[in-house]
């Protein structure tokens, strides 16, 4: 025989458990509704923060191994890093599009960062002590392009395809930021031996090597 006070206690606990369950379910529904409402209010396209300008892209073509110049209108920021990311993003978006002349998956999100350093002299035995303020503002620059690991991992393997990707990035940077004379690459912030087994990513590339075909 169960004492009456224990029956009463059991009933209260059961009722409390049911109430807590209902409350939790209700809170979860409210959170879900808030999340859906937040998604609905997100912009479907990125706001244009800068006026559209003409950007020159060096677009690779696998069928004849060429780099062809294309001029596109893009919103470009005055900040060199953001400007570089925008033009490279557009270039890689073209490569990720269906029927691309140089198919490479990944798109514009594959460029994590582009930052700039004073370009060291080619063949200099040792770097200069420190470039002057004027040199830093007007002298040639070394662009460091930081790509995502997934871009490198999914890049098609081959000498031609990898070389064209590297050269088109170098040439596009130089065409839009003429002070960029040298380019180096990082993948997820780290040096990497090759892009996808062939093109050397440990060396400094000269932008002049990426001249477009006439």
């Amino acid at each position: 025989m169960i004492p009456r006070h224990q029956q009463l206690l059991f009933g209260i606990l059961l009722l409390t458990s049911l109430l807590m369950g209902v409350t939790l379910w209700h809170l979860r529904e409210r959170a879900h509704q808030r999340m859906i409402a937040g998604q609905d209010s997100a912009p479907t396209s990125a706001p244009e923060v800068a006026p559209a300008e003409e950007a020159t892209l060096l677009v690779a073509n696998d069928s004849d191994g060429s780099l062809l110049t294309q001029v596109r209108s893009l919103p470009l920021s005055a900040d060199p890093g953001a400007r570089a990311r925008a033009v490279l993003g557009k270039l890689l978006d073209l490569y990720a599009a269906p029927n691309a002349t140089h198919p490479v998956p990944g798109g514009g999100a594959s460029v994590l960062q582009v930052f700039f350093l004073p370009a060291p002299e080619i063949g200099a035995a040792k770097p200069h002590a420190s470039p002057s303020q004027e040199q830093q503002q007007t002298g040639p620059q070394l662009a460091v392009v930081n790509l995502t690991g997934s871009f490198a991992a999914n890049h098609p393997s081959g000498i031609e395809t990898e070389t064209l990707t590297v050269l088109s990035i170098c040439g596009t940077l130089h065409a839009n930021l003429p002070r960029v004379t040298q380019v180096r690459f990082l993948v997820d912030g780290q040096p990497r031996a090759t892009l996808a087994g062939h093109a050397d990513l440990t060396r400094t590339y000269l932008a002049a090597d990426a001249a477009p075909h006439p």
Partner: protein
Amino acid sequence: MRWSNWSLAILVAGGVAGQPALAQQAPPAPAAPPPRFVVVLDAAHGGNDTGGHLNDNQLEKTLTLAMSVRLRSLLAARGIQVVTTRESDVTLDPNKRAEIANRSEAQACISLHASEAGSGVHLYASSLTPAQPVRFAPWKTAQSAWVTRSLALEGVLNSALLQAGMSVTLGRTSLPSLDSMACPAVAVEIAPELGSDKKVATELDDPDYQARVASALVAALLEWRTDAGRAEGHQP
């Protein structure tokens, strides 16, 4: 000193017995040895490094090894000495490949690759800036003293492949093993042949296609040997 005594002895003998005796006693002058002509075949990738994934799950490392074996046989049959960087599915780092090539003092180094991207045969020489040869060259840019010769070899290969009716793409690139080779070096990348509709007309694993590429490469290397003979061996 020994040479002087020997010469003196011949002269003395000649002086005693006259010119005909000298002609009979002197050893026949050895014929000039034919110039040594060595070709290095570097089958790219291997072992853990599979290279690219080609159609029908074929790996780049398998196709490059097959092409290397085929070329080695064809070249050896024509009396050309061949050094290969690998004969089986083993992992080789780029430095080891360049080391094998540099030890062989070859007149031509061919790095064999394959890719699904592009069309026909792609020929690539190093993108290093040509430089004057020096006694001790930096390892990573050893090819810079040979770039001019590598571009000449690329031209000979291009002519032979075009003559065989293949589409060829020429270019310059930066490959770690190629840049460290101290010999005329060209990377040969074989891709499927595309038709006029830009669709694949001949697959990479087509034995006839591989045979045509190999024959054209052999013809080019025979031509290069003739040129090298005229130019008196290798030089940067």
